[in-house]
């Protein structure tokens, strides 16, 4: 099976090289046979990579440790879900995933445009196949340079095949973590499609909006994937790490945020080009930058050039990726410069108060945000270059700059839908802005009067902007529904459904704006009004945190022989005004270290990985969040005594004697159990972090609403289906005409 996968991967490399060559010939000569052949070859790349992925997945599911990748990232005791997802826990597996997703995205767009964009498609095919060739080539290069660890099917020599694999890191055993990497990768990869068509449009000088129309869905899909990847990462950080935050401005997080920012700008600005024929240079530049930032994200994760909690160890794929990024940037820039004449706008902006200038302003803010994040992320390299001293910027620096821009963007999310294209007259302005502005002002007054809003001016500004945007979008939906009812009657609900399904793109966008407003309100509230306290409690002790009284009721302990872990926890009673709000049971799990010293089996349990199981109660107004860290220093003498005993025992028995080994294992199990009992009976004090996080749940709700809105926007409407049918018909007609 693995041999089949390896063969398929090698064949995929040859096929994708053929795709590039045939697409280029087809593009130069205009010969349809070459073009069709290159398109089919691209489909074949998809098929071959599918075989490779299935083969590798089956090796993971069968725990075939003769593959280096499986032995290093999975084990027989790994739960099945994580066996399946362990593939992208490694560099080689991630590369395969990258190439595979690219083959899906590319095949989809080539199929969708098979009867359209005859001039652009072959060039775009060549670009997409070129990128695929790069990544498949990187994997195959691993057969020549095994130390680069890029080849997914690297086999271990028969003598080296271990009985048990290394397993997946316990921290990563979380459903969000299982799908977070492929979502991010898919986000990165799907931006390749609009990039490829932009390049094709530049080469052929067909720089009207047709390349945008055929690929904007792919940009939206990329946006949804990236958003989902970011949201899952944040969610994992919040619920799994004993830290309590969801965003830390870590370089790798920023690397995923950067293409999201420029991609969001792109999704907005292409509407101006479609509608008014403006911003052409801007749009091609944006998609080039977005694609380059996607590659940079992949590079940052893997290269170890920046200090990050995600640092994956230094890898050898950094230099080739940098070469690719440089090629993309330099090549595209030269291409854009040589086509400047063709890219001139059809029109100019009529008025500063028009939808197109709002889009422009929104773009400037998004780019400004991207520049800030980029600068902060790469500051260690910049400062080292200028001062010789590597220094880094922390969250407060990012917050100071990003918060005002975020407030501006949130405000624009409400202004944009209210202003018309071209220009607005003062009467229309009043009509559109009266209600949202009064809602925003009302919200501001209420917050200042009842919630001491002035104490946190930035949070207050974000809430006011959020209220404005929610009111503005709500008003648009309301007026649209009312107008539709006046026209065709029916119930409010049917009128509303008719309204939004008639213009999915516009109203899907509005839904995204609602989601982002909710999300940012959640971010502002939870970061400005968090209550956090560390308590050191023994069973029976109580403490107070803000309005809450917290009691450590009793300890808990649990042994899991399958995952080889032991959990020590606490039952914590949370009350407010004497009334129970929550009964939480946070715990800390200790995983036996497979690298432990065999002569100290008990110590090994507490020197391996340890993870926090957070005790959490989510609510619409606030989350109550606790993590516990038992102070096990009083266990040290007991552990040392036990280990000394086992060390003596191990010396006396013959390692080959199975009965004796079994006896020792049973004794070790007994010893671990008695440690667990000791935790219950002679409970040591525990450090308990107790957070009250207001409105956090709105971050997740807002994120889901935004993604659903984007999905709604990209779902093909009735009009698109009609267009597709007519395309197929036109192609058929063209073929018949050729024949006669």
């Amino acid at each position: 099976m693995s041999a089949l996968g390896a063969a398929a991967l090698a064949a995929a490399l040859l096929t994708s090289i053929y795709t590039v060559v045939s697409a280029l010939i087809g593009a130069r000569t205009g010969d349809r046979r070459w073009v069709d052949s290159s398109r089919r070859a691209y489909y074949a790349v998809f098929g071959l990579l599918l075989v490779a992925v299935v083969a590798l997945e089956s090796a993971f599911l069968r725990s075939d440790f003769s593959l280096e990748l499986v032995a290093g990232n999975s084990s027989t005791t790994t739960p099945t879900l994580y066996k399946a997802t362990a593939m992208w826990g490694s560099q080689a597996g991630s590369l395969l995933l990258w190439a595979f997703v690219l083959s899906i995205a590319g095949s989809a767009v080539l199929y969708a445009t098979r009867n359209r964009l005859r001039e652009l498609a072959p060039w775009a095919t060549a670009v997409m196949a070129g990128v695929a060739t790069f990544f498949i080539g990187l994997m195959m290069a691993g057969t020549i340079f095994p130390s680069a660890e890029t080849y997914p099917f690297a086999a271990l020599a028969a003598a080296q095949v271990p009985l048990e694999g290394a397993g997946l890191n316990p921290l990563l055993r979380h459903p969000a973590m299982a799908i977070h990497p492929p979502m991010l990768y898919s986000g990165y990869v799907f931006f390749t499609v609009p990039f490829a068509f932009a390049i094709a449009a530049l080469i052929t000088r067909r720089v009207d909006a047709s390349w945008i129309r055929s690929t904007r869905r792919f940009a939206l899909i990329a946006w949804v994937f990236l958003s989902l990847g970011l949201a899952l990462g944040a969610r994992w950080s919040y619920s799994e790490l004993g830290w309590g935050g969801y965003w830390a401005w870590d370089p790798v997080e920023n690397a995923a945020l950067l293409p999201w920012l420029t991609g969001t700008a792109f999704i907005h600005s292409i509407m101006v080009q479609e509608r008014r024929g403006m911003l052409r240079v801007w749009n091609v530049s944006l998609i080039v930058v977005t694609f380059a930032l996607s590659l940079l994200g992949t590079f940052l994760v893997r290269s170890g050039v920046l200090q990050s909690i995600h640092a994956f160890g230094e890898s050898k794929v950094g230099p080739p990726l940098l070469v690719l990024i440089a090629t993309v940037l330099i090549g595209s820039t030269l291409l854009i410069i040589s086509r400047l004449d063709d890219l001139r706008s059809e029109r100019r902006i009529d008025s500063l108060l028009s939808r197109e200038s709002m889009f422009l302003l929104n773009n400037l803010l998004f780019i400004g945000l991207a520049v800030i994040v980029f600068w902060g992320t790469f500051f260690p390299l910049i400062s080292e270059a200028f001062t010789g001293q590597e220094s880094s910027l922390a969250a407060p620096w990012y917050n100071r700059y990003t918060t005002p821009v975020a407030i501006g963007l949130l405000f624009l999310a409400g202004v944009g839908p209210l202003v018309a294209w071209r220009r607005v007259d003062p009467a229309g302005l009043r009509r559109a802005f009266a209600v949202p502005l009064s809602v925003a002002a009302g919200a501001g007054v209420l917050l200042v009067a009842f919630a001491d809003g002035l104490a946190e001016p930035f949070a207050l500004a974000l809430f006011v902007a959020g209220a404005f945007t929610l009111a503005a979008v709500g008003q648009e939906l309301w007026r649209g529904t009312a107008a539709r009812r006046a026209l065709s009657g029916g119930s409010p609900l049917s009128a509303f459904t008719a309204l939004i399904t008639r213009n999915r793109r516009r109203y899907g966008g509005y839904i995204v704006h609602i989601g982002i407003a909710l999300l940012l309100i959640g971010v502002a509230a939870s970061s400005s009004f968090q209550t956090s306290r560390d308590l050191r409690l023994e069973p029976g002790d109580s403490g107070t945190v803000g309005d809450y009284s917290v009691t450590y009721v009793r300890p808990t302990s649990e042994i899991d022989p399958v995952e080889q872990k032991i959990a020590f926890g606490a039952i914590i009673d949370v009350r407010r005004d004497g009334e129970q709000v929550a009964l939480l049971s946070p715990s800390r799990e200790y995983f036996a270290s497979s690298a432990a010293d065999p002569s100290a089996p008990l110590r090994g349990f507490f020197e391996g990985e340890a993870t926090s199981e957070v005790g959490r109660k989510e609510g619409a107004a606030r989350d109550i969040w606790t993590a516990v860290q038992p102070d096990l220093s009083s266990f040290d003498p007991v552990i040392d005594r036990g280990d000394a005993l086992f060390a003596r025992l191990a010396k006396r028995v013959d390692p080959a004697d199975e009965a004796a080994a079994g006896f020792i294992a049973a004794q070790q199990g007994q010893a671990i159990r008695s440690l667990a009992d000791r935790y219950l009976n002679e409970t040591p004090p525990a450090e308990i972090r107790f957070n009250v996080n207001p409105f956090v749940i709105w971050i997740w709700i807002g994120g889901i609403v935004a993604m659903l809105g984007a999905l709604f926007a990209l779902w093909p409407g009735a009009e698109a289906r009609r267009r597709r049918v007519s395309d197929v018909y036109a192609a058929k007609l063209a073929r018949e005409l050729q024949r006669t």
Partner: protein
Amino acid sequence: MDPAKKRQIRLVVALSAAVLLAVALIYTSFNAANDAMEPSELLAAGPGTSFDVTGKVAAGSVENGDTLRFGITDRDGGRAVPVVYDGIVPDPFREGREVIVTGALNDQGVLVAEKDSLITKCPSKFAEEHGDDPNVIIEDG
């Protein structure tokens, strides 16, 4: 005013705003940044100033108690600097791991860390070459 002139003015205003922002960005980032150091460099720099110290948790140095105490050495070993730390200890923290902690040396030569400033590098399964230590199956990134 004729439209061309108006556009020019707009462009100048926008560009100067961008330049101002850029200068502010550059200026504050050089001021706000913490210099990154290894423990040996920290010892050379002396007490008083706050730095981001990157290093390895020294073997056998971790003492859990009311506050966490541990030693931190350069990546390739050397003298351990004692650290006192209060706040959340990240899950992957343990001996031999690479950590980043923000703080300043006091007069006793102890690195007093800022609350909640401890960062532990993610122990990803993505392993580099597995050093000489036969016990280490997976090295940390």
